[in-house]
């Protein structure tokens, strides 16, 4: 257990030295505050940006606070996932490629400690970044559009984070055995897009899908209460995440 903390600490030191601890949260905060701001100023932006004929009247109804927050979530689900996957795609594969993995495993360290320490650092940083991003979004939404209960933010974001954890775990898993970190990113993004797409296309058959958690969080933001399936996707996601993490932490065939 002591060695696990040593490895975990090393991950944080590395993420500090290569500034991941700064730029990842920063991107999420930027995305988070862009959404309410662009929603608020949309009519102005359109007026200035487009060369509409003189006298055109632009009327866009102001979205509710909940809708803006749900849009933020949608933004996170596209650009945010891309950022996280690109940031963590090489988490294991780059160390295997450089030979660092061998240098560590020649010491009396368990492979599972090595993987889970990395996994935990990625999860913690992502969770922190997304929370900060949602917080920024909430702050500007309240400021510009209208009041919104803080507890709903916490609940909705927590639900959404389970989906993110699932994708992060998948990234780590692929990174343990794929040679190229580019493939890791490509496959994880593919999985995320496929799951989201299939879930919205075949809603009937995809009630178990982890991507349902995003929908649940969005509905929580918009209407203030949970709509649609929740328990089933929650359980499958947690089980799948645990399973993938287990597989990642046990395979040791190719160093």
């Amino acid at each position, binding site marked *: 257990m002591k060695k696990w903390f040593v490895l975990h600490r090393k991950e944080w030191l590395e993420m500090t030295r290569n500034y991941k601890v700064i730029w990842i949260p920063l991107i999420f905060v930027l995305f988070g505050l862009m959404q309410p701001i662009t929603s608020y100023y949309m009519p102005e932006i359109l007026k200035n940006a487009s060369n509409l004929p003189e006298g055109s009247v632009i009327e866009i109804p102001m979205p509710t606070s909940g809708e803006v927050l749900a849009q933020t979530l949608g933004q996170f689900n596209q650009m945010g996932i891309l950022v996280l996957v690109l940031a963590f795609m090489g988490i294991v594969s780059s160390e295997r490629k450089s030979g*660092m993995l061998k*240098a560590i495993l*020649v010491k009396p360290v368990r492979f599972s400690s090595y993987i889970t320490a990395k996994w935990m650092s990625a999860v913690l940083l992502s969770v922190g970044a997304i929370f900060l991003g949602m917080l920024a979004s909430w702050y500007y939404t309240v400021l510009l559009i209208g009041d919104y209960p803080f507890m709903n933010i916490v609940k909705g974001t927590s639900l959404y984070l389970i989906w993110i954890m699932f994708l992060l775990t998948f990234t780590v898993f692929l990174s343990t055995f794929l040679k190229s970190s580019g493939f890791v990113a490509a496959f994880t993004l593919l999985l995320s897009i496929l799951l989201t797409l299939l879930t919205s296309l075949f809603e009937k058959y995809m009630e178990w899908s982890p991507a349902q958690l995003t929908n649940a969080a969005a509905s929580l933001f918009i209407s203030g209460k949970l709509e649609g399936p929740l328990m089933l996707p929650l359980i499958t996601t947690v089980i799948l995440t645990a399973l993938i993490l287990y597989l990642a932490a046990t395979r040791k065939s190719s160093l």
Partner: protein
Amino acid sequence: MELLEVKSLTKSFGKHVAVNDLSFSIEEGRCVALLGANGAGKTTTLEMLASLQKPTNGSISFLSVEKRDYREYIGYLPQYPVFFPWMNAIEYLVLMGELSGLSKSKAVARANELLELLGIADAKKRKIGGYSGGMKQRLGIAQALIHEPKLLMLDEPVSALDPVGRREILELMKLLKETTTILFSTHILHDAEEVCDDVIMIHKGELAVTASLSELRRKHQEDVIIISADENLDAWAGSIENWNIVSKVISTNNKIEIYVKNVAEARNLLLVEITEKKLPITKFTVGQTSLEDLFMEVVGR
């Protein structure tokens, strides 16, 4: 006491057999050289001993116990040591020390001690990314020694270094072998002869020779007299080939190598012969064959 025993170790990658039925043992306190040409299977063997690769077949026992995790007792320097370039030397050594099971304070003390011993204490606060090849090699040895291992394994510790760096590492190995059992691989015979006690020679993944250096010298080293001359001495070479005292004569161009059974006697006889026949010799050397010849014999067969 036997520290490590390897029995019919085999590793194959698909159809390619990298290491085939290798058996040997390492006594505690010895310095052992693993010799072989490039591609003979040295690195694969060492990686299996360091539990970085699973053997396809065969067993490794450490201190007479088979199938145990003995990683805490070994230190390993890979052929191309790698580090976290964003760390400095002291941070890296402390990390490796803690991963080896040392407490933080013990690791710090030990790291400082080793940096001093290896002569890179001046650069301990510098990022490893800016280190030279020789400094990295030293740091690699330091990380292998951090937890005072019973067995130190070095994969080609001097091959990539310049003559000065190589001299220094060899001197260091002489120092280390006083306290630690060392197994190192090399394809340079001269280095092996200089520091090791025992030799394990492998060829194409198979064991060729295993013996102590002195034993090898006794068995395979012959006295040889080399004569160079201004003219071709083939005819004369043929005439001395059937002397009792001569075991073999190799004559190339104007040079004759005469392998003899008794140097003192042969030297006298040859010198008399040379003066009698007024041979126009330019050089007369008395010496011994080196292990290089044995190596060539093993590799070339």
